[in-house]
């Protein structure tokens, strides 16, 4: 055992701050998902969760303006230590499942359907995360920009296409009961984008 004079005070202080950060980030995550998702709690307590989520952000400086050096430093620390997000994976409910489909139009009137392609299962898992984040973003221009980039990557494989319609939607999976009754998954369109491409000089997103 270490003697009292040899207590690693710096390490102890550091780990205390680390734990404070973890707890605050996790509480914020928990309160946020409780206020935004369907849970056992009545909807009337949602404002309480909202307020609690806000309160947990304050000690981390995350209520300060985005350009604040304090906020940016704390954000960097959280990211460096891997504790910038909570652990509510697949909770309290499994999120919707999203899918993007590209409809390629050719000058001769032909139409082809294309799905995004990645080379490995690992990248496939990551692509599905991208779709989740892209669809759920509240900033529409960012979503448009990302869909445009994906459309461009598809167009590079089909340079004679002159127009690509990107359809982003949610896949409704059948419940166990519905599956027993023979219901298959269905697709619901959320956003659709049209991008024109000039064959000679591809437009850069």
């Amino acid at each position, binding site marked *: 055992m270490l003697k009292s004079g040899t207590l690693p005070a710096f390490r102890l202080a550091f780990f205390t701050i680390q734990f404070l950060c973890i707890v605050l980030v996790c509480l914020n995550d928990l309160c946020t998902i409780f206020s935004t998702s369907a849970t056992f709690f009545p909807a009337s307590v949602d404002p309480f969760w909202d307020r609690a989520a806000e309160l947990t952000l304050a000690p981390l400086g995350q209520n300060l303006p985005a350009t604040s050096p304090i906020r940016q430093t704390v954000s960097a620390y959280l990211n460096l230590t891997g504790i910038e997000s909570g652990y509510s994976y697949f909770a309290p409910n499994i999120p919707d499942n999203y899918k993007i489909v590209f409809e390629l139009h050719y000058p001769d009137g032909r139409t082809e359907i294309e799905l995004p392609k990645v080379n*490995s299962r690992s990248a496939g898992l990551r692509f599905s995360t991208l779709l989740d984040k892209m669809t759920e973003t509240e900033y529409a221009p960012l979503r448009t920009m990302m869909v445009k*980039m994906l459309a461009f990557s598809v167009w590079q494989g089909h340079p004679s296409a002159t127009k690509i319609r990107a359809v982003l939607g949610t896949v409704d999976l059948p419940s166990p009961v519905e*599956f027993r009754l023979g219901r298959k998954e269905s697709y619901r369109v959320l956003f659709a984008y049209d991008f024109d491409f000039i064959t000679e000089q591809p437009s850069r997103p």
Partner: protein
Amino acid sequence: MASLCSALRRFLFGPQSTVWLSFLRIGVGLQLFCYVLSLRSDWIELLAEGNRGLIRRDLMEALLSAESPLIPRIGWIVGVGTWLNLGETNILWFLWGAMLLASLFLVLGLFCRTTSVIAWILFLCTAKTVEPFGYGVDNFTVIGLFYLVVAPVPDGWSIDARRRGIGLKSTSLQGLHRRVLQLHICLIYFFSGSAKCAGRGWWDGTSLWRALTRPPFDIIPPDILIRLGFLLPVAGILVCVMEATYPVFIWPRKTRLIWFIGVLGLHVGIGLTMGMYLFAWVMIVLNMAAFGPEFAFGVPKFSFIASLIERQIEPSSS
């Protein structure tokens, strides 16, 4: 008050061998090795700046800058490479090779401190740059690498200790660092389990059904799942209870082994039934390091396992 302080001191600085650190180093090293290999065929498409990739790197890094300009990113490394007149593709492949080499050095335990810092920075740069593509596995890998960076390396099983003659750090310091990891793991499961408990679907099996049938996790055909339908609510409740009560039942001698094996089983299940192999592996590694064999099997009935592992791994401790 004095007895409380003494109890806290015993809790935080209880002597520990370096076995936990061996598990963490080798496990995280293997994790990084598999991560790098698994992304080999998509490496350039994920990280290229121009129109060669899926989402341009400059957009992803702009999003990162909006959060904080201090977060490491690939752009910094590419910037240095460009200054040295190296092409972007060459730099990205160099980075890939460097990460692979760092992961091998970690597994071997060669230059532990330097290697863990390099691996941590390179992985951070990659994971943060492709954050729009990121999921839990990246966070847990960063957590593992970070605790390795600040840990009292080397461990008894590393080449540094066995061949290069670098001495092991104090057992109390090992105790403190292991405690930190244990408490962090407890918080992870507590918050993860609590969040799940609030959702109706985890109690009636719907969430488990959705998780297992949702692409790209739909490895098991729904027909088979339907046949095992009666197990879904039980498994869903088990997941909630096991996770939310982990911080309570992992400590007492009588229950720790059940919870330890239960949680390992949960992660093996996630890996096999959802195809999230890297996620499953990193969680198993963190659990093994935090509450691994000599802690979980430190009950009288299984103490021979703990002592066997200690004898095999630990050459000497200073």
